[in-house]
């Protein structure tokens, strides 16, 4: 997309890989710029989620019982599984970067495939959870019924939860708003990530990362790990509020 320019610095330096952009002097400079840029982008992501974490913190302090009751409707089993899945996918992605760095094409393809599959599993489980919320009338705004917390239904195999007073029960809607906003944003990031993974898979199969031009893989790795980190916080905050009660 850049307009062609005369390569003015030809000969001034040693060999230039074909993928070095004209405005960078060295390959090191290009690589460091790319990862620095990616990190700055991740900072904006931190702040983006930061707004929601602030909201979460405030309302959790205000409406603690509602948050407890809300979190008790989430399935720890599914949540834990998903955490494990995501961590594993982060691991396979890290391996992918390593394969790219050491120029192992088939390893890279395998890692990407695994990451993709794990990502899909995560989203699958997430959608099961979302569906359950829909069925239980726990979707704020669209399909919400606070009475399910005033007279909770007995779950098989679990002790009956004591009901909440009506006013507190109504505030579970805030909990679920934040639950959906946060996990929804997180899932959106995952979906975007899956798109990029597929793109990367095609490129990898074509051999685009065989000559050391792996900035894209590395930076995608950073992105994927970041998404993982967000979940590392979401999991205890949303699922594990005083499970002991």
């Amino acid at each position, binding site marked *: 997309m850049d307009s062609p320019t*005369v390569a003015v610095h030809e000969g001034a330096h040693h060999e230039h890989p074909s993928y070095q952009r004209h405005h960078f002097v060295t390959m090191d400079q290009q690589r460091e*710029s790319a990862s620095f*840029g990616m990190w700055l982008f991740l900072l*904006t*992501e931190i702040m983006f989620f930061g707004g*929601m974490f*602030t*909201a979460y913190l405030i309302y959790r302090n205000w409406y603690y019982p509602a948050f407890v009751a809300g979190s008790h409707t989430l399935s720890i089993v599914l949540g834990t599984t998903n955490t494990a899945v995501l961590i594993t996918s982060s691991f396979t992605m890290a391996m992918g970067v390593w394969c790219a760095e050491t120029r192992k094409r088939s390893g890279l393809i395998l890692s990407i495939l695994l990451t993709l599959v794990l990502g899909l599993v995560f989203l699958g489980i997430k959608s099961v959870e979302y569906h359950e919320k829909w069925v239980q009338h726990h979707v704020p705004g669209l399909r919400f019924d606070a009475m399910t917390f005033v007279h909770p239904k007995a779950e098989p195999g679990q002790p009956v939860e004591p009901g909440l007073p009506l006013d507190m029960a109504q*505030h579970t809607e805030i909990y679920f708003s934040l639950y959906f906003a946060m996990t929804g944003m997180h899932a959106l990031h995952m979906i975007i990530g899956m798109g990029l993974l597929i793109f990367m898979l095609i490129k990898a199969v074509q051999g685009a990362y065989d000559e050391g031009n792996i900035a894209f893989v590395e930076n995608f790795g950073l992105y994927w790990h970041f998404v993982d980190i967000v979940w590392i916080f979401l999991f205890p905050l949303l699922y594990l509020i005083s499970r002991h009660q």
Partner: protein
Amino acid sequence: MSSIVSLPDQTTARIPKRNYITNENGIMSWLLTGDHKRIAILYLISITFFFFIGGALAGLIRLELLTPQSDLMAADTYNKVFSMHGIIMIFLFLVPSVPATLGNFLIPIMIGAKDLAFPKINLLSWYLYLAGGALTLWAMISGGVDTGWTFTVPLSTHYLNTNVVTTGLAIFIAGFASIFTGLNFIVTIHRMRAPGMTWFKLPLFVWSNYAASILMVLGTPVLAITLVLVVLERTIGIGVFDPSKGGDPILFQHLFWFYSHPAVYIMILPGMGVISEVISTFSRKRVFGYSAVAFSSVAIAVFGFFVWEHHMFIMGVSNYSTLVFSFLTMLVAVPSAIKIFNWAFTLYKGSITFETPMLYAFGFMGLFTIGGLTGVFLGSSGTDIHLTETYFIVAHFHFVMVGGMLMAFLAGIHFWWPKMTGRMYPEKISQLAAVVTFIGFNFTFFPQFLLGMLGMPRRYAAYPPEFQVLNVFSTAGATILGVGYLLPMIYLVWSLKYGKIAGANPWQATGLEWQIQSPPLTENFVEIPVVTQEAYDYEWLDRQKEREVTQVG
């Protein structure tokens, strides 16, 4: 009056055949360009467009306020007009004004790089800006929006039936344009400096844009998520900000101002950079206290994150946190004072000439000082109670934004016009325009301080008749001001064809950008320069010139 302008012999001078403008032809070569200079020009055209729309809306505001009754338009129309005025002026004009045009054009050149680190992201940023702008216009045409630029909940979420969602999305998108600009600048300034270009050799323009970029990258996402929550609240009613569901509308204020206070420094810092360059050049002296000015930019950026609550003093926030935020507001005001005095002392023992950019810079110093000091009135919580939500605030922010930043922007546009286009603007008429702007400005906005003191609330379509006289002054002033802004528009376009040929360094300034041809080559430098001189090293420049003379002779 003497001047420092040194133009090449007009009978023989030619604009260099090969430059970034002539390098490629056709509309596609512009729309798909990766060249930071071309993107800067694209940005310049688009923000000018939005400035005049915003300005026309300002004209409507002032016309309506000519009389106490709401007779020119109904109250809800008036509300839509000032909302759009604020939204367009802030998000689509002032935030991108200096960084996305002058910064885009100059930062790579000033640090000796061939382009910004991510040319494609730079182009993407412009397209995002356009998309945001188009959506905003769409929202305006298809019924308007009357939230005010602050989107206050629960008004915006539950009590209005205008295009809040469209506008919210538009600002969300435009916000990402700003994030990408900032991100690009930070990476470029860190990673792409020419050999020898250490941090303390950077021009102050680069420092201040760097500081503003930090704010863009870290502040804007919070606005983005806030707008998302507003849109979700409005569309499906999630209740996070809705008091009837237990949400807290004050939380919205916290999140909104967490961005929007730093945003005012996003708006002023790049302008301060322009002033540093201009004052130094036209007094032929290095900026007094270079490192103090550089660090004060960073200090403003850092402290700028800790004062947002001063917009909420009367909204029922805790009295104790008011104490903290009011205190921090006082701290953040100090670096600005440092800058003003350093600029004043740059003049000391200089050799001063009064070309148009310098006139605008003087305008900036006077008006920004007034605007800033009245900001301190607002930062002191006891007086804020009386002054908040009145025309005093309107006057305060127009002094800093219009008297400050817009003046700085115009100073910068005139100053770098020869570099961007290769031609000079006409000097006499532009000096006239600067003076007209200054006079018109004071006429327009000074009476508003008095109105505010007297208690006239802002965002009023109709007001008690006793306030009329001052409002008439203000409207009269706005007319003069409008002329002051139309003039440059006309003569700058005129100069594209008829202006004198500028040559590489008409001001004999020291920056790297003046050492290359105007307009520059697409790749900026034939050879990456090795920097040995300090910023604003006029002795180095003189030696350089001598060397050239002896070489040619």
